[in-house]
């Protein structure tokens, strides 16, 4: 259980603070005036929300720990996918992380025959997208160091 209003207000204060540290680096007042106005508006609104969180507290249920772990793992996989593109190249890393995400969604596919089918599906889908984007639409896809 957590107070969503209070957490949101504190998070916004932190964000404004991060932006506020950069205000002094902006030379022209014309580039500074509007962000400052918006930051102040965010501070005032967050302060009202903070007060409201005490006057009229609203608590929200946390997701189950098992679910949170799964979400955390998924976010890690997404960022891992992106990082791997730079090393393994787009296609190889995509087949790898596509399969890993499939396993995360449905762990039962770890059985050998199902896993082989899943890797095959990943490869075929990525191949199809390759044909549509790079050949038909002429849209470049990310490139990596080892494999393109």
């Amino acid at each position, binding site marked *: 259980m957590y107070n969503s*209003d209070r*957490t*949101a207000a504190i*998070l*916004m204060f932190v*964000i404004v603070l991060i*932006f506020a540290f*950069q205000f002094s*680096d*902006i030379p*022209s*007042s*014309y*580039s*500074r*005036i*509007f*962000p400052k106005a*918006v*930051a102040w*508006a*965010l501070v005032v*609104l*967050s302060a*009202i*929300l903070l007060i*409201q969180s005490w006057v009229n507290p609203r608590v*929200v249920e946390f*997701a189950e720990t098992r*679910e949170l772990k*799964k*979400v955390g793992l*998924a*976010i890690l996989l*997404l*960022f891992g*996918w*992106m990082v791997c*593109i730079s090393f393994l190249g787009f296609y190889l890393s*995509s087949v790898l*992380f*596509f*399969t890993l*995400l*499939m396993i*995360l*969604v*449905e762990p039962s*596919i770890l059985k050998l025959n199902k896993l082989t089918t899943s890797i095959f*599906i*990943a490869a075929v*889908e990525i191949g199809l*997208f390759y044909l549509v*984007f790079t050949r038909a*639409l*002429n*849209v*470049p*896809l*990310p490139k990596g160091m080892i494999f393109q």
Partner: protein
Amino acid sequence: MNPIVGGIMQVLTPTNLLFMLAGTVGGLIVGALPGLTATMATALIVPFTFTMPPLSGLATLGAIYMAAIYGGAFSAILVNAPGTPSSIGTCFDGYPMAKQGRGQEAIVAATVASVIGGLVGVAALALLAPPLAAIAIKFGPPEYFWVSVFGITIISTLSSKSALKGFIGGCLGMLLSMIGISPVGGDVRFTFGIPAMQGGIELICGLIGLFCIPEVLSLIIQKAEELERLKPRKAQGIIGTTTRQVLKQKVNLLRSSIIGTIVGIMPGAGGSIANLIAYNEAKRASKHPEKFGTGVIDGVIATEAANNATVGGGLIPLLTLGIPGTPTAAVIYGALLIHGLRPGMELFTVHGDITYGFIFSLLIATLMMLVVGLAIGTGLNELLSRLPVRILVPSIVFLSIIGSYAIRNNMADVLIMLAFGAVGYIIRQLEIDSGAVVLGLILGPLAEEGFVQSLLMSKALPVPWTIFFTRPLSILLIALSALSLFWPLISKQKAKRPGREEGLNV
């Protein structure tokens, strides 16, 4: 021969009709793929139109433009990822409809509404171009500032759970939109020392991240029995029933189409703003605004009619004054110049056959959209609904990565998209509306430019700040903003009055 008749005759040749059909199919596919926009599609095709006769080239570009704006609805409805920024509002009710197994119904509603919106926009272009363009040029920086303020006030209606949190989300979006080079001062700001951030946050990356990734994360943790509900309902004659349902909403259709046309005329605004304003107005006018966001067909109709009406609207200042109303209209401007056509009265007199032919071709393309859209949309809905979640999840992520990368061929955009995805998931847990953050992202640059330019303009005035409050159009926009801001309170008061009950199409 009369230029109107001449133009129509030239469009109706088999070659031109084939070009338009290809343009409609291509535009639809591009629009449906997140990250590929109508502007990108038309820009890619412009070089191929060099060798075509002027009318064939323009008709192809017009068909792509119209279909791409509509195509964005597919991914918005089926995977909660707006294919183009013009379909943001379609996610709000379209995706809940798909989750209830009513994806086909949402697609039919989006198709019919898009066609009607497109036709209204084209009709305005054909009949009212010169007078409407004259109003558009009266908009100066103070008016643009107030237009964006009006846009922001939509949040009070859009965020049904907490207007306060909605405005916080809007401010957060505006703050994020200021990352990069400032529009007036030209300074680099809020890049946190990362050179890749100088280009700012690409709107599409923000959209994909905020709407798509949190949905993927939700799908991952959903239980098997909950996912069963995603299976589409089988219903006979759904196209006919839904079409009748859409056509019954004459006021919603007309209001949204007019909003789309007017917003399209204003340079810099476009479909991304029009669809949200139309959604807001549909919600405000509804007897059951609380049901919006839960899978109400009215919301899909409003957004889709509005965004396709911006196509005709956006071309009004382009053809009459040479001012493109939307980024895609700017690409078409380039195509006009390539073919030696200069916007202005000459376009309607000396080159009348080409201009009226082009307008007529938009009408034909809109009608083609009806057939092609229903066929492709039905197929996609069937395909996605049969796809197991274990394949759907990585496919959406894969498409999100490609979409974010394709805009500027930059891996930093993919990183930004993923970061927005993580933030989107967190703010969803904190009950902050992602739609409000997106609205801030869209309106931030427009508001800042209007605000700072107005300040610069007002330097010569004895009391500088009065420039915001003295111009007639500004006063009108301030009044509209105040009305929009306090509308939830007004509607609460109205709801307290007895004897107000009417059905809603859910």
